[in-house]
């Protein structure tokens, strides 16, 4: 078993265990919600204090909402994404197919791990600012025509984003907010590594940590909440402005999310999410990369579209060290994928998040 496969198996085992635990809680919701667990904390509060308490949100991970003036939210999330095998259009391509297409090297698998720190602050009742700092670790397995396998890796801070969320409607359990943000080019686009060609080789586009350009992001989010159900959608568009220092511009990215949340108890809810994404090819080219060497170095083989289905669990922690925080687990699988390939295909991603409001 390769290192990547072993890590993947270990993570899936952990995640399945967590889901099974959540499943047993679903079967017996009262076990997850001891009577008065948070009621004890609320019992001594005056009516004014109760009216000032935030009720916790149930959105899936990565989707945000505005916060009341003066309120902070700190979040940490971890994403593990596995890509396995290649796809051209919607058809699978073996490494042999890729090599027979004229490339010297074929990628075979990729693992991306992302740690994300989020900080949100309610500037006004209708305006919240958010800063997100991702840290990426990427490793990619390859095979070449001589049947030699090798791995490249890169890690570091990715692009920092600063976003404003502006509430345009918040009444009767229906909420709409607009988002406008800017991703700053804090992620490296000069990652290098050792390949069969030698040490200190420029790594291909998907191994770079940032876009190298200032990227505005605009979006709109709608959230509706009922007693045990809530649902919503989010649309966003990421634009790439100008050309980076390596003479290329990543493709624009459009994304939508639609989700449904079922609350099983005060402490436990489950989420079902459908996410669609469409991203363009690269404009320009890094002169240090040879597009015929490996598909990941070809700017015309970076675009694609994908529809993902995600299932998740939200835990609210009424007691203990994490009291008042929200823990979110989500497993996402692609159900439709079409790539300007050959390009590595997504296998799944696992997400774990922790959020505190204070």
């Amino acid at each position, binding site marked *: 078993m390769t290192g990547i496969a072993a890590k993947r198996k270990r993570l899936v085992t952990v995640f399945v265990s967590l889901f099974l635990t959540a499943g047993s809680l679903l079967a017996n*919701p*009262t076990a997850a*919600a*001891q*009577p*008065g*667990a*948070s*009621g*004890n*904390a*609320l*019992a001594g*509060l005056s*009516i*004014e*204090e*109760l*009216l000032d*308490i*935030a*009720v*916790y*949100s149930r959105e899936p991970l990565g989707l945000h*909402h*505005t916060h*009341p003036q003066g309120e902070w939210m700190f979040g*940490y999330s971890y994403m593990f994404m596995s890509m396995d095998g290649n796809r051209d259009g919607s058809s699978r391509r073996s490494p042999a197919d890729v090599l027979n297409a004229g490339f010297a090297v074929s990628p075979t698998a990729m693992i991306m791990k992302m*740690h994300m*720190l989020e900080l949100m602050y309610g500037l006004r*009742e209708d305006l919240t600012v958010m800063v997100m700092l991702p*840290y990426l670790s990427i490793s990619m397995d390859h095979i070449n025509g001589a049947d030699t396998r090798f791995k490249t890796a890169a*890690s*570091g*801070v990715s692009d920092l984003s600063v976003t404003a969320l502006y*509430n345009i409607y*918040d*009444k009767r*359990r229906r909420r709409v907010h607009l988002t406008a943000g800017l991703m700053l080019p*804090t*992620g*490296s686009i000069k990652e290098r590594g050792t390949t069969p060609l030698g040490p200190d080789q420029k790594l291909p586009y998907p191994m770079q*940590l940032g876009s190298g350009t200032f990227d505005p992001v605009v979006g709109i989010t709608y959230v509706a*909440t*009922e*007693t*045990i159900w809530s649902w919503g959608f989010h649309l966003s568009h990421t634009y790439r402005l100008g050309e980076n220092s390596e003479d290329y511009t990543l493709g624009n990215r459009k994304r939508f999310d639609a989700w449904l949340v079922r609350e099983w*108890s*005060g402490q436990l809810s489950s989420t079902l999410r459908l996410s669609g994404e469409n991203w363009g090819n690269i404009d320009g080219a890094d002169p240090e990369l040879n597009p015929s060497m490996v598909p990941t170095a070809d700017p015309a083989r970076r675009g694609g579209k994908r529809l993902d289905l995600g299932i998740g669990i939200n835990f*609210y922690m*009424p007691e*203990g*060290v*994490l*009291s*008042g*925080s929200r823990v979110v687990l989500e497993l996402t699988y692609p159900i439709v994928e079409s790539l300007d390939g050959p390009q590595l295909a997504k296998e799944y991603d696992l997400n774990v998040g922790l959020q*505190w*409001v*204070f």
Partner: protein
Amino acid sequence: MGILIRFSFRRLFIAIALIVSTSPSLNVGSAWAAETFPEYDVKAALIVQVAKFIQWPQTSDSGRSLHVCVLGDDPFGPAFDALRDKQVGGRPLTTERLQNLQSARDRCHILFISRSEKSRLTSILAKLKTSPILTIADTQGFAHLGGILNLEIENDRVIFEINVRSSEIAGLRIDARLLELAIIVGDEQAGDK
């Protein structure tokens, strides 16, 4: 930039964990203001607090306890059972989940009408109109239809509407301090705003 890109994330995370665990202002386990709570836990706690500002007519004070009922599907879960430990003005709270209205008229001082009863809300409120029962719901338009207190969520906080005319018809007296915190609404039928 190179230093920024290649710093150890593990060190950063440990540093943040230390800051979060040692800073009094960020100590998430210590202060209620630092936490979020499930919606229906907050609403259950509010029902207890609201009851302190209500005066029932003498005739409805049969027995010492104050009986809190839920009609229809119970959205509170364990938070509703936890009300049994509480007292309001020296009177212990008792709780009951009901499936029909008749028993509510006989026993309940406070009746939370679940959203599962939305389609027959008008008829329920008409039958309870003159009963000394504090009717509560979290259904859009409840107070305008003649319910006494409606709980809503706005900007992650619970807010509430009170229909004063309905409380007067039911024979309940609501303390002015509670009315100051409420959004006062009137009946749709009466043409009130």
